[in-house]
């Protein structure tokens, strides 16, 4: 019988941790040995994640009760993993941190975008940015991987082929996102009478995921605005690119096929027929897909690239499990093959 790796999820009561737990419970090579929550210690995990009822009898434990494991998923609020990385690294040889703490390689950039000094700057260089489409070979066998920003992932995968080809003169990215991006903690602005039906611009400038895109795609003239819309899960990114040289759609097909033809979780969606002819986040709920499509404005030369993901999956837990598979030498797609629901 194949070895089963022992995984523990720290901060498992949030949406990201819940999704990691859901995925790992169906992973044939992983056993979940612990799920921590200070607030819910002693409670069955299905009391917080009701979709997992009858899938596991696991109860939350406090972080202090955490024992050794083969891999730790840190799903803590931003800033917490950085403060305790020495302790967590003593518990497991491999860590995937879903927070923003170890995504940026540069401590000055971390301070600029988070407003705080990094608590463990010496660790920044040791983490691999956790997007396999960018760092697959470095992730194979790696011991430390960061998570990815959901909005950054939608942009990175939309723009990567254009960035590699040096085609981005300026990119203006308009993202529409679901309410689960705000996390599990309730707020007055998230109260149903306020939130329902709202089209709420919440980060017109200065969103910190911009830093991840600049780090990963290199210096590009990037502008980013985010609006929260009537979705629970999902990110839809429309990236308006003003290219450095004229480009037509056939050459974009070639460029994007070259970049993503062999990728297990990126699909090109640009269809003259069918129900959803461009990427649609609704049908990606629960999946690890990133769908990408594009169009060229024949009048102005502007290129519009559209991408869609489930923010909790490809934008968080799905990519994290994909990283874990690579880190452990497992088949990259294991436990991530759910194709989504239709209709939904």
């Amino acid at each position, binding site marked *: 019988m194949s070895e089963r790796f022992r995984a523990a999820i720290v901060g498992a009561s949030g949406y990201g941790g819940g999704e990691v737990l859901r995925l790992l419970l169906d992973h044939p090579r992983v056993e979940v040995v612990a799920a921590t929550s200070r607030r819910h210690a002693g409670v069955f995990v299905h009391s917080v994640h009701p979709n997992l009822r009858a899938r596991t009898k696991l109860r939350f434990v406090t972080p202090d009760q955490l024992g050794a494991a083969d891999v730790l998923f840190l799903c803590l609020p931003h800033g917490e993993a950085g403060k305790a990385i020495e302790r967590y690294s003593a518990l497991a040889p491999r860590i995937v941190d879903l927070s923003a703490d170890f995504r940026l390689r540069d401590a000055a950039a971390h301070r600029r975008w988070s407003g705080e000094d990094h608590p463990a700057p010496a660790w920044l260089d040791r983490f691999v940015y956790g997007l396999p489409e960018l760092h697959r070979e470095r992730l194979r066998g790696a011991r430390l991987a960061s998570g990815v920003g959901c909005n950054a992932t939608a942009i990175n995968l939309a723009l990567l082929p254009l960035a590699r080809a040096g085609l981005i003169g300026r990119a203006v990215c308009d993202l529409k996102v679901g309410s689960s991006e705000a996390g599990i903690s309730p707020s007055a602005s998230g109260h149903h009478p306020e939130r329902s039906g709202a089209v709420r611009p919440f980060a017109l400038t200065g969103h910190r995921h911009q830093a991840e895109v600049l780090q990963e795609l290199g210096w590009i003239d990037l502008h980013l605005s985010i609006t929260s819309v009537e979705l629970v899960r999902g990110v839809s990114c429309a990236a308006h690119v003003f290219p450095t040289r004229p480009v037509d*759609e056939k050459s974009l097909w070639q460029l994007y096929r070259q970049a993503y033809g062999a990728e297990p979780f990126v699909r090109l969606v640009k269809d003259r027929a069918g129900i959803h002819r461009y990427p649609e986040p609704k049908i990606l709920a629960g999946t690890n897909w990133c769908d990408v499509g594009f169009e060229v404005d024949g009048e102005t030369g502007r290129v519009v690239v559209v991408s869609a993901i489930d923010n909790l999956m490809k934008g968080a837990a799905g990519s994290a499990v994909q990283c874990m598979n690579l880190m452990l030498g497992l088949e990259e797609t294991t436990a991530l093959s759910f194709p989504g629901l239709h209709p939904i």
Partner: protein
Amino acid sequence: MSTATTHAVDCTECAAPVTLARTPLLGEVIRCGDCGVELEVTALHPLAVELAPQVQEDWGE
């Protein structure tokens, strides 16, 4: 116009290879599996296609 010697031809729109299980008829409309565009068979030897007239939808414009 794109051509090929077998029952395969490149899509004029996205350059994806479009393969056919049988010999098509002249004037037959086939669909590209990648971009969904409809292609009209304009020659058989060699096989050639052109973009067929597309049905446009009015999304409230």
